[in-house]
């Protein structure tokens, strides 16, 4: 049986097996390439993508690559700089999407009424098992969970990698410095949603712990 394999646009080209004309020619060529790189390594460093020679080592930690805005390491939570209000409403979207299931959220209950409040009482991310996929940041409708650029997290203390809400919270300005254009795109939407959320919070609920005492809790009581 003969199977004909049709190829449109372009053809199957058999590879030619070239051989050196005299013994040692191929080896000399190889040595030439290597020596060329040795000489060029004393020249300018490889900084431009169009170069193919020159030293390309980045000497971490003195030199660091500029991270792309989209860079993602591990997730953090945001709160507003001025009011201290957390952006998270504990809608549990991120907990549901997280593939390794490392996000654990406890929703807040108003101590007086026992009703759910739009804020997370506890927000735990197991950094040791998080795969840094960024899906949580993608699904969050309130732009509350974002991916951090900080990558020097190595520690000998395993337990410290279970991050609680207080460890995760960062001000919005921090995220803005990491990814200015991304924040620019979502800023308006995020603040609008935050205002709606704040309307339905009361007292100190939903205020970042580090900001408690520094900001005035909102006066308005949630509409009954």
């Amino acid at each position: 049986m003969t199977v004909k394999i049709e190829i449109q646009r372009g053809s199957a080209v058999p590879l030619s097996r070239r051989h050196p004309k005299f013994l040692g020619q191929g080896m000399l060529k190889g040595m030439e390439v290597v020596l060329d790189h040795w000489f060029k390594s004393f020249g300018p460093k490889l900084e431009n993508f169009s170069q193919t020679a020159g030293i390309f080592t980045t000497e971490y930690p003195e030199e660091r690559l500029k991270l792309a805005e989209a860079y993602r390491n591990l997730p953090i939570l945001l709160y507003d700089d001025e009011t201290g209000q957390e952006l998270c409403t504990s809608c549990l979207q991120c907990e549901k999407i997280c593939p390794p299931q490392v996000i654990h959220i406890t929703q807040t209950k108003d101590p007086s009424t026992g009703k759910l409040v739009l804020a997370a009482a506890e927000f735990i991310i197991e950094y040791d098992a998080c795969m840094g996929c960024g899906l949580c940041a993608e699904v969050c409708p309130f732009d509350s969970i974002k991916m951090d650029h900080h990558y020097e997290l190595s520690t000998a203390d395993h337990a410290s990698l279970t991050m609680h809400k207080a460890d995760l919270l960062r001000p919005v300005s921090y995220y803005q410095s990491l990814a200015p254009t991304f924040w620019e795109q979502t800023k308006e939407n995020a603040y609008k949603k935050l205002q709606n959320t704040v309307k339905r919070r009361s007292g100190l609920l939903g205020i970042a712990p580090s900001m408690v005492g520094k900001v005035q809790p909102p006066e308005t009581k949630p509409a009954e």
Partner: protein
Amino acid sequence: MEALINYLLNTALNLHAPEWVILLIRHLLVATILFLVVPFQMLLLTYFERRVIARMQDRVGPNRVGWEGVLQPIADAVKMFTKEDIVPAAADKGVHLLATGVVVVPTMFMLSVLPWGPGMTPVDFETSLLFFFAISSVSAIGLVMGGWSGNNKFSLLGAMRAVAQMISYEMPAILSILALVLMTGSMSISKIVEAQGGLIANLTDLPKVPDLGLGWLLFTPVGFLAFVCFFISALAEGERTPFDIPEADSEIVAGYMTEYSGMKFGMFYLAQYVLNFALCAITATLFFGGWQGPGVSQLSAMGANNQLFSILAGALGVVYLLLKTYFFFFTMVWIRGAFPRLRIDQLMGLGWKFLLPLTLVNIFSAAIWAACIHWGPEQGLAFLSAFGPWKRWAIAFLSTLVINLLAATLLVRINSSAESSMPKLVEDQKFGAVTLP
């Protein structure tokens, strides 16, 4: 040196020391210097190799410890010292330990017969060339001991390969050196170096050429072919790429060193680099004039009146030798950066089917060379003395060149035709159509 010690002991201190005391002190001193210099060289070589190869690969290499990383080898040595020394439970412990010594000591001995500068041979005797190669083979025993005692299949395989390789490359190495012995008429390394003064042609062959210390044996057809063969063999003997098969890490882990750790591993490492250094140095010495170079002989001639000049000549000679040695080591690193390695059977084939016949032919040319230049009526070749020395040199040069070129091309032809007898399975296959079974 003896004169200096003699002066110090007998004249300055007035001790009336007998001659053997002076000799003993001299040898002790030299041995101390060697033992200090050699490990230092090894450290430098590892650093040098890592930096050079890193630059060939667009990296920087170790540059953290000390200025530009020069202290890196010392940090490595400290690491080696402080590491746990693991001896496998099933190992033959005595042999396991002894092997390191048997490997390291001979390599140190090799350096004792090298002429480091004019009149600076630690131990100078008539058959030092023979001694050099004889002692280098002793470490093969150490390799077998190390490979066998570890009780590991990989180390045993590695040791077997190492010994097979060493033995089969000793042959072409020594045979190519034999050509030099024929040419210079001496088996003493220092004499061979002394014979390499001159310019292109050396002084023994053409006494009238100006002495710039450039009459290297490399510049003769016999010497050149011997150099090529010897350098290839040296790569194989020093287990350098493309012949680093005994410790082919991609195949048999670390070869005979697999079961070694800590300082014992370090000793093998040391032995290897010292061996490489010795081989580079002997290549430089035999073919590239060793300490010979422009100015050395003039300086030592002036040294007859003033001690200072002979010290200067010595220093210049050492610098020349080290420069040449490091050039060869650079070449070794360069080759390592560029090539993959051969397979063990291909290596054996290269040694026995290519290098050995080539060196044999080379010995024949060396005999012709010696005959053309040195023989005369006593050997029944009275007609040769009819030519002047220049003519005799030219005849020798041309005839050996022709012989060596012919032999080399013929051997390349024979060997490459054997290699290309490769099965062509898909010869008649049409592209785009496949016959399914």
